[in-house]
């Protein structure tokens, strides 16, 4: 998919060509320029161009959603639904960062999935015992260090899954994804103070849940 002709054209650093291809402001960032070109082509009916965008961002977006929606099947569905929504609403893209636009859509899809899960509760987070959740160890990794990392990751994931969805969303967006308070407020549709409060309360809740295992995190 990434070998497609549209992507090869998209990553070409040719300002004149870029200006001809799209209507939005030319970006100096090559990644942003590539994204805008792909999006413009996708708007013109080029499905391969849109799938190139999917290829670029599906890892990032899945990693984001799976922290917010600990059920991996639901997380997959949310990401797929987000890409459907992005394709359906391409015309509504008003410029700026395509990555942020997609992140916003996927965060909304993840919040919808969390609300749906709240309405139809299933067995809570069985995937946390799934070994595939753990990071793969390198060939030269220290077994003790690897075991510690696995245990820490498992404990933290379990605690994240246990706090409220709003707190989890705010913490994931802030600590994992690195968005600032204002961006999170824009994505989740709440005030800046609410975002801060959710992050602080969420961290306190995590600490309370992990009180007996804090030695894993202290060093």
């Amino acid at each position, binding site marked *: 998919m990434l070998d497609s002709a549209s992507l090869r054209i998209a990553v070409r650093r040719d300002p004149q060509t870029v200006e001809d291809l799209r209507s939005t402001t030319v970006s100096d960032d090559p990644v942003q320029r590539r994204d805008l070109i792909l999006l413009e082509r996708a708007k013109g009916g080029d499905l391969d161009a849109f799938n190139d965008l999917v290829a670029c961002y599906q890892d990032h977006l899945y990693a984001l959603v799976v922290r917010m929606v600990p059920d991996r099947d639901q997380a997959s569905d949310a990401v797929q639904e987000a890409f*459907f929504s992005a394709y359906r609403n391409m015309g509504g893209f008003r410029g700026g960062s395509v990555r942020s636009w997609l992140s916003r859509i996927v965060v909304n899809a993840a919040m919808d999935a969390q609300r749906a899960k709240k309405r139809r509760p299933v067995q809570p987070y069985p995937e946390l015992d799934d070994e595939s959740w753990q990071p793969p160890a390198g060939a030269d990794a220290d077994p003790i260090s690897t075991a510690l990392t696995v245990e820490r990751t498992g404990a933290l994931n379990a605690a994240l899954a246990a706090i409220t969805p709003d707190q989890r969303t705010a913490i994931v967006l802030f600590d994992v994804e690195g968005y600032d308070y204002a961006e999170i407020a824009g994505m989740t549709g709440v005030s800046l103070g609410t975002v801060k409060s959710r992050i602080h309360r969420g961290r306190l809740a995590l*600490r309370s849940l992990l009180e007996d295992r804090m030695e894993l995190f202290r060093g």
Partner: protein
Amino acid sequence: MADHRPTPPIGPLAAAHERHDLLLVAAWASDDLDGAARTAADELVGGCSGCADLAADLRALARATHDLPPADRPRDFFLAPADAERLRPRGLRRLLAAFAAPRAPIRPLATGLTTLGVAGLLLAALPGILPFGGAASMPALEPIGQSFETDRSEATNRDVEGFADGSAAPAAASPGDALFASPAPTVGSDTANVPPAATPDAPTATAATNAGSAPGDESARLRDAADTGPSALAIWSAIALAAGVALFAIRRLAVRGR
């Protein structure tokens, strides 16, 4: 992971840790405070070992959350051509998709039109149910031209009765009456013997005469109204009903086609 916790002195504040504002400590650990709040938090963290431990733990948790390894993606999320066609339809399908959109105001519009249509048809078709005599008795709801005809026939009727009594030529009650009044007959002529059927307005005049001479004969009046065809209310109600039902049908078709 290095432990950067401070080692605060044990003092009177430490004993009261349970009552301390932990949210303030959490905000302090995130460097979100300034001014008086920061000073207060500094005092808490500096004077209470519990608060200092809490702040250090919160920072450690934030670091650990940041370092969480990415989860493996179970599958690709590429769109198939069928998905693309479904999500961004073209031509007639696009039009239908607009009807099926959740935010499209088709359903309330269809409901409103259907309700108006049914209500209007009921008003027009069942006048006897209503205590005031129904829509047929309301001048405003009569078809255009019907009240005009009634005025004209009543004027004619007055003329006929006036001449039958042998009174003078009737004066027009209004300019409209004057316009529609029958041509003035010569005095002394036997106008009263002229049969109603001889005038062009005979049927209407007969009905008006019947209504005037027999106040309870509502059925005759209704029969006469029915002879003039459906009222404007009935026509517009039928149109509204048909439009509402058509919108429902199109929306259903569009939703099925999604």
